[in-house]
Structures are given as structure tokens and as C-alpha cells.
């Protein structure tokens, strides 16, 4: 019997471990939730009145902006949650327990898949919480059942890709501090995309970047599904293409780094 036969049960064992960690260390999850919730409230209550007039027409106001910004905040939530992945992977790597796992006849990759699956659970909890706050302050998604299912699928795909990327970042980091800083740019990508204002309002060179960076199609797909207005095919294609590329890169880098240490 080879150890690969155990890839699935070992990954489930590691997932259990991650879920227990999440329960025992809830402050990390709360910290990760802090930023998107603060940004949501800041942008809706402080900037929302003015920005909403620009986006939703002269009379749009705060509620129009809430509709516009909520999908961007949800993607920011995912980006913030995967920072947690990087931190918990790096914390794991500094402990002796990883070396213990390496000397055991287990499917090695399960150490990483456990983190990925655990983070995906965490991401769904975080996005649900942030969506809850958005609804509490007046956001009203118009999504139908099919839209919700598609949204869950899209979030799973995006979360899967970004977690592999940050697992790689966590393994490569020399310290937990570095691990928490490396994925930081991800949190700001929704800003230089269609998260907070339409990309057309940006200068030409920035608009080019903003239109094609992964978070813009991610946000557009999310926005389309939540508003029930349908999704552009090009955004779906870009969402898949970016996610697969990021996942492959992250997975490959993580495995190489993990086996080399």
C-alpha cells in the first residue's frame, strides 16, 4: 500500500486539525474579519453618500453605493482571510510538528491540503459574516437560487486558488511576520480594480491593469450574480483562467518549497 492511498483520509485528518485550531484560536478569524467590515462601514457611511451620487446617478446616494461596493468588500474578505492561511502555515512551519509529520508514512501533501481545506471553510464563514453585516446595514441582494449556487461555486474556486497561493507564501516565509505581510497586496487589489469605483474612471494606464487583474473579473462575476443581472461571459472566462493559473502556480510552488525544507 502506498502512502498516496491515504491522501484523502490524511487530508481529512489534517482538516480536522485545522478546524480545531480555528475553534481554539478564534481571535485570528475575528482579526481577519475586522478589516473588511471596517472598510464596508467606512465606505458606506463616510464616502458612500458622495460616491453613490457618482455611480448611481445624481440621486444614487448611500444605498446605490452599498449595492456597488458590497461585492468588492466580499472579495476583500476572501483576500483578508487568505492572509490568515499564510500566517497559520508559517506558524506551523516554525513548530516542530511539521518535522514530525515529515517523518511519518503519511501522504505528505495532506499537510498542505489540510490547510487549504481549512482555510476554505474559514473563508466561507468570513464571507457569510461580512454579507450578514452588509445586509444588516441595508444591502439587498437580488440573486436567485441558481445565482447563489453559482456564487458559492465561484467563491470556492477563487478561495481554492488564493489559498494555494498563500500556502506557498506561508511556507516560503522566514517568519510569521513576513508571512502576514506577503499577501497584503491581495487586500488592496480590489481598490485598483472595480471594487470601489468603476475602472473607467481611472487614468488609462491604470485602467488597463485594473481591467485585467484577477480581482476585477472576480468582483464583476460576484456583482452580476448578487444583483441578479447576469454575468458577462468574458468575466467568467477570466475568473476561471486566473483561478486555474493562480492555483497551479501556488500548488507547484508550495510543493516544491515544502519538499525542499
Amino acid at each position, binding site marked *: 500500500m*502506498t*502512502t498516496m492511498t*491515504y491522501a484523502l*483520509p*490524511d487530508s481529512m*485528518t489534517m482538516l*480536522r*486539525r485545522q478546524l*480545531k*485550531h480555528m475553534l*481554539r*484560536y478564534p481571535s485570528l478569524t475575528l482579526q481577519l474579519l475586522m478589516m473588511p467590515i471596517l472598510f464596508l462601514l467606512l465606505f458606506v457611511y463616510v464616502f458612500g453618500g458622495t460616491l453613490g451620487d457618482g455611480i448611481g446617478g445624481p440621486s444614487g446616494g448611500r444605498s446605490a453605493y452599498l449595492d456597488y461596493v458590497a461585492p468588492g468588500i466580499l472579495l476583500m474578505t476572501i483576500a483578508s482571510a487568505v492572509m490568515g492561511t499564510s500566517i497559520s502555515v508559517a506558524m506551523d512551519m516554525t*513548530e*516542530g*510538528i511539521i*518535522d*514530525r*509529520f*515529515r*517523518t*511519518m*508514512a*503519511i501522504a505528505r501533501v495532506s499537510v498542505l491540503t489540510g490547510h487549504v481545506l481549512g482555510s476554505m471553510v474559514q473563508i466561507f464563514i468570513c464571507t457569510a459574516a461580512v454579507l450578514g453585516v452588509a445586509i444588516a446595514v441595508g444591502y439587498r441582494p437580488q440573486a436567485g437560487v441558481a445565482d447563489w449556487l453559482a456564487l458559492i461555486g465561484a467563491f470556492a474556486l477563487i478561495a481554492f486558488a488564493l489559498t494555494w497561493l498563500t500556502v506557498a507564501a506561508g511556507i516560503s516565509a522566514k517568519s510569521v511576520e513576513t508571512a502576514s505581510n506577503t499577501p497584503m497586496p491581495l487586500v488592496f487589489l480590489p481598490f485598483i480594480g472595480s471594487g470601489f469605483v468603476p475602472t473607467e474612471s481611472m487614468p488609462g494606464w491604470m485602467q488597463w491593469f485594473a481591467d485585467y487583474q484577477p480581482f476585477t473579473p472576480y468582483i464583476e462575476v460576484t456583482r452580476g450574480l448578487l444583483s441578479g443581472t447576469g454575468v458577462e461571459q468574458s468575466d467568467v472566462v477570466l475568473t476561471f483562467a486566473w483561478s486555474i493559473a493562480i492555483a497551479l502556480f501556488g500548488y507547484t510552488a508550495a510543493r516544491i518549497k515544502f519538499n525542499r525544507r
Partner: protein
Amino acid sequence: MFDLGLLLTLYPPAKRGTMNTEPLAIEARNLRKSYGDDTVLDGIDIAVPRGGIYALLGPNGAGKTTTVNILSTLIDADGGEARIGGRDVSAEADRVREQIGVTGQFAAIDDLLTGTENLRLMGRLHHLDRSESRSRAERLLEEFDLVDAAARRPSTYSGGMRRRLDLAMSLMGDPRVIFLDEPTTGLDPRSRRTMWTIIRELAAEGVTIFLTTQYLEEADELADRIAVLDGGRIVAEGTADELKRLIPGGHLSLRLNRDDQIEAAAELLGATATDPEQLTVQVPGDGSVDSLRSLIERLDRASIEVDELTVHTPDLDDVFLALTERPENRKESVR
């Protein structure tokens, strides 16, 4: 007709003999490892038969941890080969991993899980069934005196308790070979004794134990065989007694009452050294009762007054210092 090939397949030569069919528990030949220009292991050989305790003794930076890391499949050697229970550590790493338990220098435990949960995690990763995993965990908690702490997180444990939990985790898979990298470093004397008892009991159960230590006392107390590692080479190997024989024997030190008797005493007893200022005379001897009695009789007869007599027997410290300090002593072997 005879088909020799078939016959050999059916009765391979190694299986026909009745002796020495069992592979060595640990076998390493000419292991080398360097990081850049820094040679950490410069060709070491290790042979450990099944059962018993083997100690790798050496100062910090001698290459002890590197050796354990190679033998426990954590890192690859640059040259040479190593086998655990006949399986190659790099080509058959998973077959090796099935046989071993490793307790490193730094606690390899999950601080967010309780003691029991840590053990059960190991049970699941060893693919034990639920009841087996539970009963093994309970037995180990009991044996290692951790029952009261089982439901607590290891961050509340003392150093000795953490080390015991760490070792218990290594034992969940019922390993045949256990690697202990400096198992008692940083422990207080009582915890150290407890650890020693546990290690002896494991060896008595037939587990092969490979431990590294920088404490001579520990190697002397526990090990059947000791290899002294220094600068990436094994400079001596043998039982504790064999190693002690490597250096000049013990001596007696006499402190006299009167300085005018030093020369007389030195001549009478065949002293190897005298120190007129301290009024001491050094005499070769093993400190046995008979030799002491005759020594005292001779001194009495010569009316030499002795204030104090101390017996100095060679210990591993002498061996260690002698072997690891003088380059000309390298590569000495006792067999």
C-alpha cells in the same frame, strides 16, 4: 530438470541460513553531508543491531542532529547510504517511516490541541482504527504519567511533561526504531531520571533506540554502545568501558601533612606527579580496597602522615575531552 534460477527464487540464500538473517536495525555507511563549504558529516559509519540503546555522543555542532535527520528521512545525505531495518532511507523513505518514531530536540507537539488530541491525531495519521487509537493513547498517558494533564493544552505543561508527551506521540505508531535527539537537554534532574527510566523500559520491550546526547553521564547510564562524534567524524566507538580504557587509568591523590615527606612518599609509591605547594602526590591506581590497604600500610611503615586521600577513576568526561580536543586522536577505534 533443475532450474537453478527458480530454486533460488523459491529458496533465496539469505532465507536458508538460521543466523544473521535479520537486517541491522540501523546501518549507515560513509554518510556525508555538507552545507556549502561547511562539512557537517565527513563519512560516518553506524551499525546498530536490533534492540538495545545506541548513543551518539558529541559536543554542539558535531553533526548529531544532521545524522538523526538523515536516518529519519528528514534530509538526504550527499553521499553514502543508510538503511533502517534493511530499507534505504532515501529510496524507500515511506517504508522507513513506517518503522520509526522520532523525538527531536524541539517539541514536535501541537500546542492548540490537548494532550489526548495530540495522541489521537497521531493515531489517525498511523491509520489505526478508532478503538485501537483510543486504547493506545490511554495506555501511553498512563505510562507517562500524563493522565491528569490529558485534557489540557501542552502550553500549560512543564518541560518534562512536554518531552514525555512528545515521546508518547512518537510511540503511537508502535515503532521498531526510535530516534531521540537530545531527549533530556534542558530538563531538570528529576525529569531526566524519569526520561531515562522510560527509555530503558522501551529498550527492554525490544525497541531499538538511537539517541544523541552531549551528556556523558547519559550515554554512560543508558547506552550499550557509544559512538563519539566530533567535527563530523566518529572518533571512537565502543561500550562505555571500552571507551574508558582508551585513556590512561585512574589515580590516587594524597595530600600530605609535611612538605619534607613529599619526596620520600613519591619515591616509595612511584608517584607520577607531585605538587609541593599543595603538598599532593599522585599515584597510579584503581582505588580498589586491597590496593588502598597496602598503600596505607606502606605509608604507615614509613611514618608518612597523610591528611587526605582522594580516588580519581577515569570517567567518560576524560575520554570525551581527550578524544575531542586532540586532533591526533581522531579516528581511533576500539573493537
